[in-house]
């Protein structure tokens, strides 16, 4: 158990980040990521070391996401009322930990995060999953197709549609001041 917890500590942020971008809600992200750890703990015997531990873990993560997607077990909290991405305490502590305690920058950061998350939430769950696997995880279309259970062409098309939708929703333009200013932070 202790060894497993140490292992979980190593990858928990990555899994949590995926879950957060997938369900854009901290509570659901925690539930989902913990479910991933629970399932991987129960299935630890089946890990034969043929792939890296993270690849195996990501497979479990994707299956958990797909199960949630099929069961529609979690509601999209805040989808209609606007996204409250981070709880106040987390944001406040983030702001305190930021080396440059610039309230304007922090606000821009927050706006950008909320805009991106809102745009991601407007994608279909399959488009969102494929986008995250491609962009965040750097998986190939063949790997994505195999993991999600679709053809490579479908994976490519979903990715393309997801990017186009995000571009439209975020109204990204080279001259877009909000995005550019937001992007200037930390670049």
């Amino acid at each position, binding site marked *: *158990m202790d060894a*497993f*917890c140490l292992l*979980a*500590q190593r990858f*928990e*942020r990555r899994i*949590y*980040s995926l879950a*957060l*971008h997938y369900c854009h809600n*901290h509570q659901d992200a*925690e539930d989902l990521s*913990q479910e991933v*750890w*629970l399932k991987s*703990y*129960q299935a630890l015997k089946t890990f034969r070391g043929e792939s890296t531990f993270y690849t195996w873990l990501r497979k479990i993560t994707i299956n958990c996401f797909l199960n949630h997607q099929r069961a529609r077990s979690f509601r999209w909290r805040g989808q209609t009322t606007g996204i409250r*991405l*981070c*709880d106040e*305490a*987390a944001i406040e*502590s*983030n702001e305190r*930990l930021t080396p440059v305690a610039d309230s304007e920058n922090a606000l821009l*950061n927050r706006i*950008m*995060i909320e805009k*991106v*998350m809102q745009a*991601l939430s407007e994608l279909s769950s399959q488009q969102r999953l494929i986008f995250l696997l*491609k*962009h*965040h995880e750097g998986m190939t279309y063949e790997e994505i197709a195999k993991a999600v259970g679709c053809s490579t062409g479908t994976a*490519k098309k979903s*990715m*393309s549609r997801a*990017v*186009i939708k*995000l*571009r439209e929703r*975020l109204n*990204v*333009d*080279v001259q*877009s001041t909000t*995005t*550019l200013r*937001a*992007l200037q*932070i*930390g*670049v």
Partner: protein
Amino acid sequence: MHNCEENRDILIALALNPPDQTQSFPAELDRCATCREEYAALRTLLRAVDQTKQTALPAEKFWSGYHTRLRNRLEKESPARVASPAAAAHISLRTLLENLFTSSVRVPLPLAAALLVFLGGSFVFALNSRRPANAPPPVVVNRTVEVPVFQEKIQEKIVTRVVYRERDRRQPGSASAIASRQKESAAETPISLVGFKPENQVKLTIIKGSYPQ
């Protein structure tokens, strides 16, 4: 002829994997101002998403609580691993029993109906043939009983062969009759049953007029 819409997928692929110093941006797209702008916008978008990935994570203090909750959940929901061997065996037995009663097998409807009828019939038969609980135990008596055994007798078949001889119709006192009778008696051989095999069916031929009047 360059078509910006047709090159959108290529631009997306390029934005996802931007060309490094060794690779060059496709010349066709580089010449088109719209495509260059589209590419820049896509890169901006993906950078924004990247930045969100890093900044959206909760603060450091969140993770200690996360660990505690995860550990609690692991201990609570997977007791089989942490429990003692006896408890683990009990749990596995329980799981086995649960599986035994909850697992299902697909059976064709006629077969299922036949099985049900058979089981029902067996149950009813077992109920009817069951001895009452307070009935005395059966008494065992050792006695020799003589039972006549009938043996089938082999029936003998007696077959009689009747041989008719043609009678001499001539006058008994005539010289020719006496001469022929003497000739016949000399040639006549004694009748024997050697080589005769009895048959179940005997064909009897009656020669008309041969019987003495």
